[in-house]
């Protein structure tokens, strides 16, 4: 039921939130019922005001149409998604990320959709310190949760890695490592704990050896 994943940095849009289009009808016409378009438009306007990304709402509306979900359930899902984005934004700010970009909020929202709580998001955000890439870290966290690592284990693994100086871009191999361990018979929780310990041990290396910071470009 699981696939080994390789994961690096998410190259998502880093567009400032204020500059996003709010005209969702153009993207949804012809694919989504009118009632859903109206609801999506209202939520999109609210999203801009709240400072959260609009495109996940558009995507969710399209998804609902593709799956033939009744309009009222799609609208309910959109409302849930919107409020989750707002919560995610707040959680990131609580964790010290003063102006998260669209990708960061999307990532945190994805992580919460995968089972992490707002305070989990805050804890992970805080562990990032000054070198912090909200989007990547949150996507890795969400993917770990999707792979089956319980929320507490996910928070522990990601926070421990960040605290040990692992660059967010290098967190990407974690879900794959957990899956390999699960395929060999460990539970996701055990695999995550083992990986956390190994990461800490590896990064207890004296300065000058091992990776000191962000991976150089072009490698």
């Amino acid at each position: 039921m699981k696939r080994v994943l390789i994961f690096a940095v998410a190259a998502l849009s880093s567009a400032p939130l204020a500059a996003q289009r709010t005209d969702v009808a153009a993207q949804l016409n012809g694919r989504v019922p009118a009632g859903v378009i109206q609801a999506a438009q209202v939520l999109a306007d609210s999203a801009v005001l709240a400072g959260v990304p609009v495109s996940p709402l558009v995507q969710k509306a399209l998804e609902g149409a593709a799956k033939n979900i009744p309009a009222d359930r799609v609208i309910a899902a959109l409302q849930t998604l919107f409020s989750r984005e707002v919560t995610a934004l707040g959680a990131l700010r609580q964790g010290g990320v003063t102006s998260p970009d669209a990708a960061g909020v999307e990532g945190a929202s994805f992580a919460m959709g995968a089972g992490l709580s707002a305070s989990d998001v805050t804890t992970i955000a805080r562990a990032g310190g000054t070198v912090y890439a909200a989007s990547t870290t949150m996507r890795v966290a969400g993917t770990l949760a999707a792979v089956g690592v319980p929320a507490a284990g996910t928070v522990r693994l990601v926070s421990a890695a960040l605290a040990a100086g692992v660059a967010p871009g290098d967190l990407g191999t974690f879900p794959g490592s957990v899956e390999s361990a699960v395929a060999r018979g460990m539970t996701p929780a055990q695999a995550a704990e083992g990986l956390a310990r190994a990461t800490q041990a590896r990064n207890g290396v004296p300065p000058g050896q091992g990776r000191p910071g962000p991976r150089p470009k072009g490698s």
Partner: protein
Amino acid sequence: MTKIEEHPLEKDEAFVRLLSTLDRSEVRLSDDLDRRVMAEVRRRAAAREARRGWRWWVAPRDVRLVIRPWMVGAGLAAAAGIVAIVARPQSGNLPASVAQRAESVFVRFELYAPDARSVSLAGSFNRWNAGATPLVRRDGSGLWTVTVPLPPGTAQYGFMVDGQRWVPDPAAPSVDDGFGRRNSVIAVPGEGRTL
């Protein structure tokens, strides 16, 4: 309603008496049948994941190619040839910018569904357009596949079978989709770019 003619035996007294002696009591199988089945089921699920993971890691005949400018420019003819062939964009399913973006990664999706009449891929990378990315059935088998270029990052997806049945990828991790079903999650590798 077709009627099956009665056979003379059904009226034979002796036979009817014999019939009534047939033991019709319920048969109960042993208690640990459940445990044995689930042990094997878990083993197979894990083995299946390991096999798929292995397939991801083994590069040689894999169609998972990373397109990087330096690779094409370096004149690796075979690689460039493969890239050129596979790079033909699927009709109308992806914005052109994605297909041409240098860091797109080709990912092959597969679903084993021998009784399906059609299978298509819908996800965040093709705007959940269930008609746009059909899978193709491999001759003589029940395996449906398609290869698409994906931008780096996380995406959610699933398979639409026969236009109406949503099937998440049995081989991938999944998340709740907000509609009471599941979406599969895939993380696509890409060039490092710190934010």
